[in-house]
């Protein structure tokens, strides 16, 4: 260089300086002169950095809102500009797409000065003729690379690197195809291109690790070479070049070296470009990561291999485990179970990040909400594998571990939205070093279970832990009691429903058939009620009976509406109903209050029964009273009546002459009685499982769950179908029998429905004592309102229950 010549001659300092200034002045003259005239034209700088527009262009050439392009390569450009028309590569000169693809100016023009002429031979050094022909073989009208001129024309007939390309064909033809890169006019490009600032990299390519281009040039050779003069270890040289960051310059990340000499004297410290500059999506995640929040760790704490990491390297579960256990205890976390499997090469098994995440490891606080969140999020991780049938079969694991958990109280309550209240997977199995129950070291080994249960439950007997957290009702070998309980309950359901539904259908058919047969027939003397009898009312139910029934109705409905959402926790309406009840907690409370009411009614009924059997503690004659006409207990007449009804159904006889209580009414009564025995006891056990462990083994809780659940189904559906048929839908009752609410009905009704009672009343001369006024309007209105509402609600619940039973 000229000024160096000056310097070598050893001129005095002042002369040197003046000379230098003069030369700089000359340079500046020369630099500004021609360029001012063509300020629009870029200066072609031979060491232009890809993506660094400012290295050639003085003016802003891309929108100001565009992310910094310095150091971007074409692939990165196209990761956002992928669906534009015209394509990005058609909107800027070929020189740009070359530069961005790693072909520097010297790549074509050589190092010589002035730059070498670039001919077709240079192009063909990289581009193969046959590839070009193939690439455009489907271009409409004609393949420009295989025309009547053949495939070996000069590239620059059409393609120009530094100015607008042209369609050579179109000097004779009128072809529409676009020739890269025609520098499509900016106005057009702006109009048609996608708005750049909307194309947020994080959103468009969430899975891509690096969502932003490095902040500086691809690889300015000098910068790298200079650093390597000292930093010559393989990890900064050949290994680095092969690494995933190998295209970057040292100074891309290590900034702040303004003076190399000072740096070498260790007078200045380098600064690190935050990894977030490129990896912004991950850095956003990491802001909430436990390592960032609590341990204040940086990327480099784990990523110690940034200089040598190869593309696609790491990424295995084992690699993650090994990285995590550089800090976290190996013994505590990865000695057995999942991690051990992973380290033995089973990629099906879970590594740390499969459950915890990688850069988004959540921070859970010691609050109930966070506990719930934690339990749920980790369970989701467990379930994602253990409910994957292909995966569990492949690894010889239980295929129904998730399903069977969901069948238990834990599963159902968790499902319904109480994750903070019940045990999830890790509560028993622990999160790490998970071993099968047969292993003495396993947390779910019988010896260790007490500790697990104690975490939530207290005051239980050791046999409490016999509870089956993954009960399988269909497995008669492992869970015989459960299996047979379930089988019995289902058999009971089938028998009851079969009998009563058939009974009801036959009744319905017979009644309507009779009605149809008698249509239009003149009333005979027999079936015209005595006028007085139609207005004369007698009492059927006392105040006490009626209040008990209303309490029963209310508590029953509440129990159904608060219990069934748990039975069918996965159904669509479960959550709706729970919310309607006032949330999970309120639902539980209402269920228990209703249960107490029902218990009270049950006990009171027992008391009344005793009083009935032993009036004034008189034992004698109790069998007579038990089987007498006033009793709700079954007697021989019921058997006869039953047979009589079936005869009547089939037109083989008249309808039986009933007494005060028909056999189906007695069944209704006993159904509740039996029901209370099963459902009430099992309910109590489920309410107070720890207490019951002093009497019964833990697996009885499973039995209680089955019994409670199935009996509930029986009771609800029986009431909503059979009981409702008898009192609301039967032809002579439709739309409802109101005497349970008003307490009284007409003598005519008594005579028709219960002729034997009527006869008995006459014979015992008690009819007059039963005589009551006609029910008042408010009481009739109340009866109609409550009755119809109950029927409709019952039928709605029936639909919901069947919906859930059949489709979930």
């Amino acid at each position, binding site marked *: 260089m*000229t000024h160096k010549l000056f310097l070598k001659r050893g001129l005095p300092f002042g002369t040197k300086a003046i000379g230098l200034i003069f030369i700089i002045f000359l340079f500046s003259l*020369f630099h500004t002169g021609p360029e001012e005239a063509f300020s629009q034209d870029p200066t072609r700088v031979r060491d232009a950095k890809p993506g660094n527009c400012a290295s050639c262009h003085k003016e802003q050439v891309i929108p100001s809102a565009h992310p910094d392009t310095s150091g971007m390569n074409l692939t990165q450009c196209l990761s956002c500009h992928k669906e534009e028309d015209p394509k990005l590569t058609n909107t800027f000169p070929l020189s740009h797409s070359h530069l961005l693809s790693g072909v520097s100016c010297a790549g074509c023009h050589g190092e010589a000065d002035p730059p070498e002429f670039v001919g077709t031979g240079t192009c063909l050094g990289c581009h193969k003729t046959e590839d070009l022909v193939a690439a455009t073989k489907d271009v409409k009208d004609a393949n420009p690379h295989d025309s009547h001129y053949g495939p070996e024309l000069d590239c620059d007939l059409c393609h120009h690197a530094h100015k607008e390309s042209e369609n050579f064909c179109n000097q004779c033809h009128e072809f529409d195809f676009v020739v890269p890169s025609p520098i499509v006019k900016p106005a057009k490009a702006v109009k048609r291109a996608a708005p750049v600032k909307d194309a947020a990299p994080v959103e468009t390519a969430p899975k891509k690790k690096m969502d932003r281009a490095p902040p500086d040039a691809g690889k300015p050779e000098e910068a790298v070479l200079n650093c390597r003069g000292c930093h010559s270890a393989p990890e900064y040289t050949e290994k680095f070049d092969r690494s995933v960051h190998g295209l970057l310059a040292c100074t891309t990340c290590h900034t702040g070296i303004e003076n190399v000499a000072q740096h070498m004297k260790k007078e200045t410290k380098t600064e690190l470009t935050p990894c977030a500059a490129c990896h912004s999506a991950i850095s956003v995640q990491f802001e909430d990561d436990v390592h960032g929040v609590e341990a204040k760790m940086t990327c480099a704490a784990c990523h110690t291999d940034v200089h040598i990491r190869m593309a696609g390297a790491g990424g295995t579960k084992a690699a993650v485990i090994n990285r995590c256990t550089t800090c976290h205890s190996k013994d505590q976390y990865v000695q057995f179970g999942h991690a051990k499997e992973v380290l033995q090469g089973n990629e099906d098994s879970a590594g740390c990040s499969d459950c915890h995440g990688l850069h988004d490891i959540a921070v859970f606080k010691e609050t109930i909400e966070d506990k719930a969140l934690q339990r749920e999020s980790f369970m989701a991780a467990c379930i994602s594998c253990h409910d994957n049938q292909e995966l569990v079969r492949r690894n010889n694991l239980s295929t129904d571990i998730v399903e069977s958990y969901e069948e238990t109280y834990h599963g159902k309550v968790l499902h319904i939205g109480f994750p903070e209240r019940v045990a999830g997977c890790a509560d028993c199995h622990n999160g790490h070093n998970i071993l099968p129950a047969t292993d003495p070291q396993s947390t779910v080994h019988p010896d260790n279970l007490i500790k697990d249960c104690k975490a939530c439950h207290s005051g239980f007997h050791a046999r409490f832990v016999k509870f089956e957290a993954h009960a399988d009702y269909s497995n008669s070998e492992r869970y015989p009691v459960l299996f047979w309980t379930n089988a019995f309950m289902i058999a009971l359901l089938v028998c009851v429903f079969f009998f009563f539904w058939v009974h009801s259908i036959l009744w319905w058919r017979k009644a309507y058939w009779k009605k149809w047969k008698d249509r239009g027939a003149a009333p005979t003397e027999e079936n015209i009620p005595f006028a007085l009898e139609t207005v004369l009312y007698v009492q059927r139910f006392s105040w006490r009976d009626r209040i008990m029934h209303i309490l029963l109705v209310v508590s029953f409905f509440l129990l159904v509406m608060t219990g069934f959402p748990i039975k069918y926790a996965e159904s669509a309406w479960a959550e709706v109903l729970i919310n309607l009840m006032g949330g999970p907690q309120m639902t539980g409370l209402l269920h228990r209050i209703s249960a107490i009411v029902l218990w009270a009614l049950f006990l009171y009924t027992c008391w009344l029964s005793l009083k009935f059997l032993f009036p004034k503690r008189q034992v004698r004659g109790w069998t007579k009273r038990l089987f007498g006409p006033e009793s709700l207990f079954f007697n021989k007449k019921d058997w006869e009546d039953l047979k009589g009804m079936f005869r009547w159904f089939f037109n083989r006889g008249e309808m039986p002459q009933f007494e005060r209580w028909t056999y189906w009414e007695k069944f209704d009564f006993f159904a509740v009685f039996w029901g209370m025995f099963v459902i009430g006891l099992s309910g109590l056990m489920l309410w107070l499982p720890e207490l019951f462990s002093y009497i019964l083994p833990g697996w009885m809780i499973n039995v209680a769950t089955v019994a409670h659940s199935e009996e509930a189904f029986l009771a609800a559906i029986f009431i909503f179908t059979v009981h409702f048929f008898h009192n609301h839908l039967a032809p002579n009752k439709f739309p409802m029998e109101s005497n349970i609410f008003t307490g009284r009905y007409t003598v005519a009704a008594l005579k028709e429905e219960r002729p034997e009672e009527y006869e008995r009343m006459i014979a015992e001369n008690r009819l007059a004592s039963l005589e009551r006024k006609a029910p008042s309007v408010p009481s009739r209105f109340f009866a109609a309102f409550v009755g119809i509402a109950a029927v409709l609600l019952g039928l709605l619940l029936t639909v919901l229950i069947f919906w859930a039973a059949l489709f979930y």
Partner: protein
Amino acid sequence: MKEKFDVKNGLTRRGFIKTTGGVALAGMAAGSLFAGPLKAFGAEMPEKWDEEFDVIVVGSGFAGLAAAIEAKQAGSSAVVLEKMRVPGGNSIINGGVFAVAGSPKQEAEGIKDSPELLLEDMLKAGLYLNHVELAKTIAEKSREAVQWTESLGVQYKDRVTHLGGHSVPRSYSTHNSSGSAIVTKQLDKVKELGVDVRTQSYVMSIIQDKEGRAAGLKIKEGYRFPDESTGTVKYLKANKGVVLASGGFGRDLYFRTIQDPKLTENVDSTNQPGATAEVLMDALRSGATPVQISWIQLGPWTSPDEKGMGIGYVFNAMAGFVYGVMVDPETGKRFINELADRKIRADAIIRLGHPAVTIADSQGVRRVHNLDRALEKGVVKKFDTLDALAAEYNIPPEPLKETINAWNRYIKQGQDREYGRYLQTDSEAIANPPYYACRAWPKVHHTMGGIQINNKAQVIGLDKKPIPGLYAAGEIAGGVHGAVRLGSCAVLDCIVFGRTAGQSAAAKV
């Protein structure tokens, strides 16, 4: 840019001024050279030739390449100069039809033909303005010429085509219906023989020695058509001769309008943009005798609905004119023999004052290889009924139907009673819908005139004697076709006289 790099290299201020000053002076000199009027004299003999060859061929079309092949095969070194960036000129975009009289293909089809009949057709179309000796030469050598191309590997379709003005079907058609089929084989041969085809080489002037002999050429290398300022001057010495095969001037608006002022920029051309007159003009300046330069042929088959030769001409030439009819859309009537020579047809259409409409039915279009593309481009249109066709082009429907009925009668009768058009042996009545139509409007296609040559392809000077060392062939040479060139005779002309010129130059005739 150049200066900037210089400065970076550290020129001293004085050196810098010297350099730029030199450049400025050189620029001024070049400017005066280019900007000044074309000199009446050719370039001076250079002090030093840059390169020398036995034979320099100007133009890389049929004729030029044929000449180069022959010259080289005769043992001379040769080079082909092409000013465009691609070789082949008009030949490589030509329609690939080659008139052969008495060919094996005609024999196979039972068509009786002879060189005499071809000559007669040429003379008739040429209004007997043809230089008969030249016309006779190509008619006689047609069979030999096509066989020569076949020896280069050119493939032709089996059937011969009947083009306008020919009394019988006699035209060979290349397998791809393009002259490129011939040019690419010629280029292969040239390459094989080791002859350079130098594109972007612009001939500035023929250099003659004191005896008037064509001694070489002053050219510009690296010329970038049409930018006059591009390229660097070189002098090429021709030890034996210069063959001018630079083609016609259909796209040279200046020269064309001098010869035929009607052919302004409003008239399109089928030619490639390099079909300009500079070599012809320099040959005239060098003393060549002009022949019938104002006979400029318009192609009658082109469509006004597309650029240049386009693709619609195939329909007109292969269907409309051969199996269909061409009508005046104003009257719905035919107005000319659709197979008359090009000039008669083109003139007739121009006389209408508006484009004519050619019509063929689904039978008539069976030899139109590019029908789908033409339909897609909308140059040819398809109609289910003649009424729809008439409506599209505003043709009165009844007269149109009468015209078609009359034509169908002529086919039955075996004679066109209106215009005496040749009926194809496989002609059928136009009665099979769909119907197809295309508009026809002439475009400048061929310049018959040029410089005078003799049978040995020697250029004849104004001193009535051949100019030594100067040969010409192809479209630059005049007289072969007279007033009108028949279709498919250009390829024939180029091959025959191109080869002759190469042979003559190599033999220094």
